[in-house]
């Protein structure tokens, strides 16, 4: 690694040294609890659309916890956070543009 890259890596490592171990265990616990809620809901025979909405909501919260704490994006500079997340969201929204018109049409036609 080049010298200036080593300096930057050392600065990043210095930031990571201050992360408390306990917070990782809290995040892990929260992820396990949310997974347990998802499995519990599966046994409740909810309507598919309602079930999907809740499951996707929980999945997005779980993803945010993983990206923020485990992948350390929470501690990155805001330029890094915005560029990575906004580009990802824009690409997924572009996929959705192709997906949702048909999906809604099918749902309104009553196919389950």
């Amino acid at each position, binding site marked *: *690694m080049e*010298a*200036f*890259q*080593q*300096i*930057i*890596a050392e600065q*990043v*490592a*210095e930031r*990571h*040294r201050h*992360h408390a*171990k306990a917070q*990782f*265990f809290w995040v*892990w616990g929260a*992820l*396990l609890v949310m*997974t347990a809620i*998802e*499995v519990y*809901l*599966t*046994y409740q*025979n909810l309507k*598919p659309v309602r*079930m*999907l909405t809740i*499951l*996707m909501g*929980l*999945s997005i919260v*779980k*993803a945010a916890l*993983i*990206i923020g*704490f*485990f*992948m*350390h994006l929470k501690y*990155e*500079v805001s*330029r*890094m956070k915005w*560029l*990575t997340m906004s*580009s*990802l969201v824009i*690409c*997924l929204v572009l*996929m*959705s543009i192709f*997906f949702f018109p*048909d*999906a809604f049409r*099918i*749902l309104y036609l009553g*196919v389950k």
Partner: protein
Amino acid sequence: MAEATLPHGRPEVYEPSLFGTYSKKIGMWLFLLSDSLTFGALLYSYSYGRISIANWPTPFHSESIVNATIMTAFLLTSSLTMVLAVRAAVHGDAKAQRLWLLATMACGTGFVVLHGREWSHLIATGLTLPVFPAMPGHATTGEFADVAKNVPQFPATFFGLTGMHMLHVTLGVVYLGVVALRRNFIPILLLCWLGAWLGTPSYSPFHYGAHVLLIAAIICSVILWLKPKVYDAADVEVAGLYWHFVDLVWMFIFPLVYLMSARII
């Protein structure tokens, strides 16, 4: 421009990083962004089939849901051990770093083994793809033999999506093995390949899929031979990013594929 003192003591001027971090990490983030689009496309294609086909199968009994839940717990725990490995690395604790990396690999291996068992069970009950070798005596009589015939989109999207994820987990375990054990990992990898290849029946997709480990062993050998190095905290952190991404993708596959297609009686 910022000034800093380089390790050899000579004052130098360098351009600060635009994203406040080192290039390797930015490179991994860019790779993960592109890879998330691959999984996004696969998840959308699965979801499209799920809502557009009226007789979409719901093959996952309670036993499968329990199995997938344990797999999820394995992955979540592996993310915790991975982040503890990164923490040990930045504190310079090489022994703890190696132990946490090995724990992460163990959880990842557990995930792959359970997933393989789930696949084998589904294939044995008739849910298969035309590219899979025929299983003697089971393929035409199993519980899901009709599903594979009447709704071929289900096995195609299911095996495509979960197979791609399983491949990512397997390569992640190999990646962590190289970071943790370096050259010592190559013979272990070759033994795993032999075990997976010879230990699975010839009609199992894992019989041929095991060769991924052989290809990985060859590539890793070339890399370790061309560029031998001691992997530092930055390398562990970059490997961790990849591992957490694999976990992250499963957080969408598990509810969309398993929980939304559960058959709970």
